[in-house]
């Protein structure tokens, strides 16, 4: 059964320096409040996994939490580069960041395989691409029935998955709705999981085939209202597209970024951060 904790306690108890952490949410429901709490608690040497690093990992990388990034598309969607990610990769600031990159299809399959308890995912992928030349985790197998050459990648099995969702009921069952991305897969693939939610309710109000993650498949739940801002939560608030555009200016410069981080993360508590 999932344990109800404060965000501070959940992060402190279940994320350790050196862990492999997958924080997911495909554009929608990105767990920013949890990311900020990780920054505040100055977690270090994390291997961060995420299909689209987005602003959340740009912030965590810029704050020095990460030593390695596994990803498949590292930009500010519709805006441009992730400047903190680039600064870490290109200039080693604030520390050298190792990267391992995939395609979306491979990462989606790798999460799916992780949730399915398998060591590998098989896909028709990477044909003609140079990515296998720079990522030694991409291999090829031969189908024993047809002889077709197919790509194989290791499944994603993080130490901790962190996602944000609309709501949990009082037993800790969680509803994820809208663009569900690979959040359920991330939770099921991980050894431990932290789910932040907009609210706790008596009844999830879920339809019969809704994406509900049962309490017994989750480690900890923390209430974090507006916990995915500037991303969004369908039915609660919209994506703050203007902030995504502003971020380009904030992140471009190390000092502007550090000032932003101080004001908006370090000088806030987990509770304030959400508001």
């Amino acid at each position, binding site marked *: 059964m999932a344990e109800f904790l404060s965000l501070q306690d959940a992060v402190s108890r279940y994320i350790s320096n050196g862990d492999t952490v997958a924080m997911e949410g*495909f*554009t*929608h429901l990105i767990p920013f409040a949890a990311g900020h709490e990780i920054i505040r608690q100055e977690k270090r040497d994390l291997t961060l996994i995420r*299909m*689209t690093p987005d602003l959340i990992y740009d912030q965590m990388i810029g704050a020095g939490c990460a030593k390695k990034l596994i*990803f*498949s*598309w*590292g*930009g500010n*969607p*519709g*805006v441009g*580069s*992730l400047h903190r*990610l*680039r600064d870490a*990769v*290109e200039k080693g600031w604030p520390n050298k960041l190792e990267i391992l*990159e*995939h*395609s*979306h*299809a*491979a990462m*989606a*399959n790798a*999460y*799916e395989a992780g949730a399915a308890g398998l060591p590998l995912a098989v*896909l*028709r*992928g*990477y*044909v*003609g*691409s*140079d*990515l296998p030349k*720079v990522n030694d985790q991409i291999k090829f197998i031969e189908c024993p029935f*047809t002889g*077709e050459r197919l790509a194989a990648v290791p499944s994603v099995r993080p130490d901790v998955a962190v996602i944000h969702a609309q709501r949990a009921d009082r037993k800790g069952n969680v509803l994820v709705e*809208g*663009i*569900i*991305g*690979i959040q*359920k*897969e991330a939770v099921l693939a991980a050894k431990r999981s932290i789910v932040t939610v907009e609210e706790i309710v008596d009844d999830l109000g879920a339809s019969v085939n809704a*994406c509900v993650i049962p309490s017994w498949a989750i480690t900890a739940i923390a209430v974090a209202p507006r916990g995915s801002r500037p991303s*969004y939560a*369908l039915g609660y608030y*919209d*994506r*703050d*597209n*203007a902030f*995504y*555009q502003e971020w380009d200016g904030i992140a471009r410069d190390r000092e502007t970024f550090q000032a932003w981080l101080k004001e908006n993360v370090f000088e806030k508590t987990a509770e304030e951060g959400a508001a």
Partner: protein
Amino acid sequence: MSLEFTSSEMMSITAARALNNDMTCFVGIGLPSEAANLARLTHAPDITLIYESGTLQTRPDVLPLSIGDGELCESALTTVSVPEMFRYWLQGGHISVGFLGTAQIDRFANLNTTLIGDYREPKVRLPGGGGAPEIATNAKEVFITVKHSKRTFVKDVDFVTTVGFGRDGKARDNVPNIGKGPTVVITDLCILKPDPETKELVVTSLHPGVTRDDVIEATGWEIRFADQLDTTPEPTAQELEVLRDLKARTKAHHSGQ
């Protein structure tokens, strides 16, 4: 009588015209998304648009800033998980057209969105592959739209993120279960198509007012022109109006107004 329009508008409208009502189009963010939605709002109202965020058959009123804006989901027939999107809908063979943008493209329509320079010591680090590597091979065909410049149109891409026809034009030969690859590239200057034999990109149509020299100047290799070189039809007043409305709505929406 000629209408006033920019080369960007010419590009988007020409790209939109490449699509039709019967297509199931896997849409990349940015220029492809603009063209695909323009097609839907003009001559192809029933075109099926799919974004990698899992939104099947979506009809957004404004262009999404990201691949997963809320409106994509709210206006979709249904929204599936991202693994399902890539496994069932793309790899499963249900996509007729993958519509991609790029940072670099070479003469064999290979795309680079990974980096400029050397992989370990990049001059410029780009976002990476995203959905493109498998869209390009699993969709039945691929359309590409990108602004024409010497920086973008290079003889050989620094990194093949996404295969067109490979370094030698033969990368798809004898590969089972692979799509036709890029069949058209639409820029702000012209339309290019792969030579049926060599797969090298050839200019097949110049946009109104664009000269051969303009294209030669903006291309990083000795670009060839088709024997029958067409002139791309101008945008219509209706196309321009719909495009401008769409962009104005989008801008107002994303700046939080």
